[in-house]
């Protein structure tokens, strides 16, 4: 694997590592852009109005259970015969990837907006803000940490699934795994896998960096987070006192993954 990675001929040309990395990032970026364009407004709308929560949770749960490999193959078998140009295999992959990338973004955006404390929203309305202003100036900034967390988990999922999509002819680093498998070239497979892992971790680190840049210090400040945690715990205790129950799953803190937003 190491020898394969350090062979200069594997880094250049049409099937070279650089081209594959760029392809992988391009497909993932395009997918993420579409998923954000659909998931963010939907999540904001559902979070702000409270409408359609049950439908959203149902769709998100159902999509999570669907096997990605099956969807990719089904997508290619259904769509590619209809398309005659170069996109015949790429387009169905991108469509399936977008469908899978929407739920984490949408449910996290919803959860972020829904988790903004009622008093903070009331303060906004009390200052004479319109519903739209409260959404943009109060709910959105407060929800940003969770929203970005959703985008992060979505991005990782797309990078991972794009690897699988190489099986149905998508380019990118997954090609090394699939081609290596076909030719029994284990060094190539392992090197490709390592490159995907490195890419995923680098993207995750970059997105964490973006998160610290765009989240308002007023929201991300450690001091505030501690107060929030304390008040959340107090609220939870009050709630459980009232219901005479133990802590409910709904009150779990720090559930940044989309996965938890479905409750």
């Amino acid at each position, binding site marked *: *694997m190491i020898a394969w990675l350090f062979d200069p001929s594997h880094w250049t040309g049409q099937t070279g590592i650089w081209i594959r990395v760029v392809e992988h990032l391009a497909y993932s970026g395009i997918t993420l852009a579409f998923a954000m364009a659909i998931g963010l407004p939907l999540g904001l709308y559902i979070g702000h109005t409270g409408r359609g929560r049950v439908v959203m949770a149902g769709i998100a*749960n*159902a999509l*999570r*259970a*669907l*096997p*990605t*490999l*099956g*969807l990719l*193959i*089904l997508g*290619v*078998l*259904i769509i590619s*015969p*209809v398309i005659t140009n170069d996109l015949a295999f790429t387009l169905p992959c991108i469509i399936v990837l977008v469908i899978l990338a929407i739920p984490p973004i949408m449910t996290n955006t919803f959860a972020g907006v829904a988790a903004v404390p009622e008093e903070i929203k009331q303060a906004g309305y009390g200052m004479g803000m319109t519903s739209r202003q409260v959404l943009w100036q109060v709910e959105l900034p407060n929800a940003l940490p969770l929203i970005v967390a959703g985008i992060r988990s979505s991005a*990782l999922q797309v*990078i*991972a699934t794009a*690897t*699988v999509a190489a*099986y*149905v002819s998508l380019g990118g680093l*997954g090609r090394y*795994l*699939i081609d290596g*498998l076909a030719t029994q070239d*284990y060094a190539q*497979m*392992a090197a*490709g*896998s*390592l490159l*995907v*892992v490195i890419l*995923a*971790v680098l993207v*995750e680190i970059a997105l964490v960096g973006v998160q610290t840049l765009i989240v308002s210090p007023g929201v991300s400040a450690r001091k505030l987070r501690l107060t929030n945690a304390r008040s959340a*715990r107090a609220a*939870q*205790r009050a709630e*459980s006192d009232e*219901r*005479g*129950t*133990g*802590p*409910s*799953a709904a*009150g*779990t*803190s*720090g*559930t940044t*993954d989309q*996965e*938890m937003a479905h*409750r």
Partner: protein
Amino acid sequence: MTAGIAAASLSGGASLNAAGNVSLNWLGSNAGEIVSMFVHHIVLSGIPTLAGLIIALPIGAFANRYRWAYTPTITIAGLFYTLPSLAVFVLLPLVLGTKILDPLNVIIALIIYTLALLVRVVADGLASVPEETVQAAEAMGYRSVRRFLTVDLPIAAPVILAGLRVASVANVSILSVAALLGIPQLGQLFTEGFQLDFYAPIIAGIVLTVFLAFVFDGIIVVAERLMTPWKRARTEEVTA
């Protein structure tokens, strides 16, 4: 012939029916094989989910008990979740010294994913146990392991089991990717369907995978109801 069916089924509803009959025949004649794949899928996704839960409990308890350990433990666990599954399936044999077709690779990979999800959930679930409850338990003489098993864990159960539901469903669907390496389970229906250019195995695979995910999910929901009788008594009132 199969390519013809795929092409014909795209052109209209009438030919879809014809394809449907062929599909039923295909399912009938391959029933034995499909059942065997299904059983493999249950084992290969069920064992890692259970094992992951058992391993996550002490790690999560450790992260919750020692403040300094929380952030590093959660960060490392979270980092594992960033690893793409197919890459992990391929790289694990290098780390473990196993063969690439060894089901052990898949089991360990899914245990890693389960841990990545559950360690945080266990720590946060235990953190949500009210201080008064802990004090009451201590005052009644409940100590260390006994308190953990009979007081902390049942109270944290709803949170932990909510996480386990996510992990079990994720494991069922991640496992199908292992078909690309030729490890027998329901994902093979997808690769077979792709090679034959034939919908029936793919749709059967998707339906069975989703069905299994719902079965696991249902089992955990029932387990939660059994483990938290106090919750049911009150929530019925609240929702009524």
